[in-house]
């Protein structure tokens, strides 16, 4: 081995040059193998390990959500619709003789509390339901789906926003792009099951906060990363309440 190295060395150079080159090539080779293993581990971790963790926690959180439904206090409050885009118009006049519509309202859950279950019958992985926790921080979303605080709870008037992972942590919103207008989305909470019908979808930038702004009526906005395997943009699906404990009060049937 050493002989062959010596014989390949330049006549006027060090006899160790060949050995150094070989060492360097070996070093580059091992570095590339290490990098490849690191990236392979990354892919396996993101696709399988995070999903395994999310599914384990989702099973546990589903039980906790059911317990939450049973324990949380639900009250009935008079419903006065918010006015939208009416400029200086006076507030709505409430006739004391008219029966006031009432809303079923549950206590605001604390951050990280599993408080709702979302079901989308046309999407396989969501047909059985996925638990939604309060909050959309990275820690909250490790379960897969989270409700944006300061937006109404599901089934309430306004614009409820729920975000979820597209490719990791169980990827509950992986097939959100397959939803079409008219597809139904059910959200179970302590007040009962509220059903929404998809009205459309849009691709937006991650900072386009208008999609979370209050809206007249009762809406559900689902957001997830877009395209798949990238967090460059957001896929947003809009759905309107079509059935639920508060439907009659909100839409004055």
């Amino acid at each position, binding site marked *: 081995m050493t002989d062959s190295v010596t014989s390949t060395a330049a006549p006027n150079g060090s006899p160790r040059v060949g050995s150094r080159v070989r060492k360097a090539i070996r070093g580059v080779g091992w570095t590339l193998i290490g990098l490849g293993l690191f990236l392979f*581990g990354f892919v396996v*971790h993101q696709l399988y390990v995070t999903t395994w963790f999310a599914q384990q926690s989702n099973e546990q959180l589903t039980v906790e959500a059911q317990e939450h439904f049973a324990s949380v206090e639900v009250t009935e409050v008079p419903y006065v619709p918010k006015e939208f885009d009416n400029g200086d118009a006076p507030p709505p006049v409430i006739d004391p003789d008219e029966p006031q519509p009432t809303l079923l309202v549950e206590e605001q859950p604390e951050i990280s509390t599993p408080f709702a279950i979302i079901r989308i019958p046309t999407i396989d992985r969501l047909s059985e339901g996925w638990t939604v926790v309060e909050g959309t921080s990275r820690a909250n979303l490790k379960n897969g789906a989270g409700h944006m605080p300061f937006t109404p709870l599901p089934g309430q008037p306004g614009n409820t926003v729920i975000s979820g992972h597209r490719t990791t942590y169980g*990827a509950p919103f992986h097939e959100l792009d397959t939803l079409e207008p008219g597809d139904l989305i059910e959200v179970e909470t302590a007040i009962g099951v509220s059903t929404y019908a998809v009205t459309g979808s849009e691709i937006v930038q*991650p900072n*386009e906060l208008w999609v979370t702004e209050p809206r007249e009526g009762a809406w559900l906005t689902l957001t997830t*990363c877009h395209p798949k395997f990238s*967090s460059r943009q957001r896929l947003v699906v809009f759905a309107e309440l079509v059935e639920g404990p508060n439907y009659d009060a909100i839409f004055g049937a």
Partner: protein
Amino acid sequence: MKRAFFALPGPLPIKVVLAIVVVAVVLVALHFIYEWMGSTLLDTGGAIE
């Protein structure tokens, strides 16, 4: 790999325990690095921020 294992201090049982500890620490560190990389580059969870 073998050389690294035998370079660990102590008799064989201690080497085995140390090797398990080192592997566990590396795996936990990798888990957190991968989590950070994934939630930064691949899928942030889809929230509007």
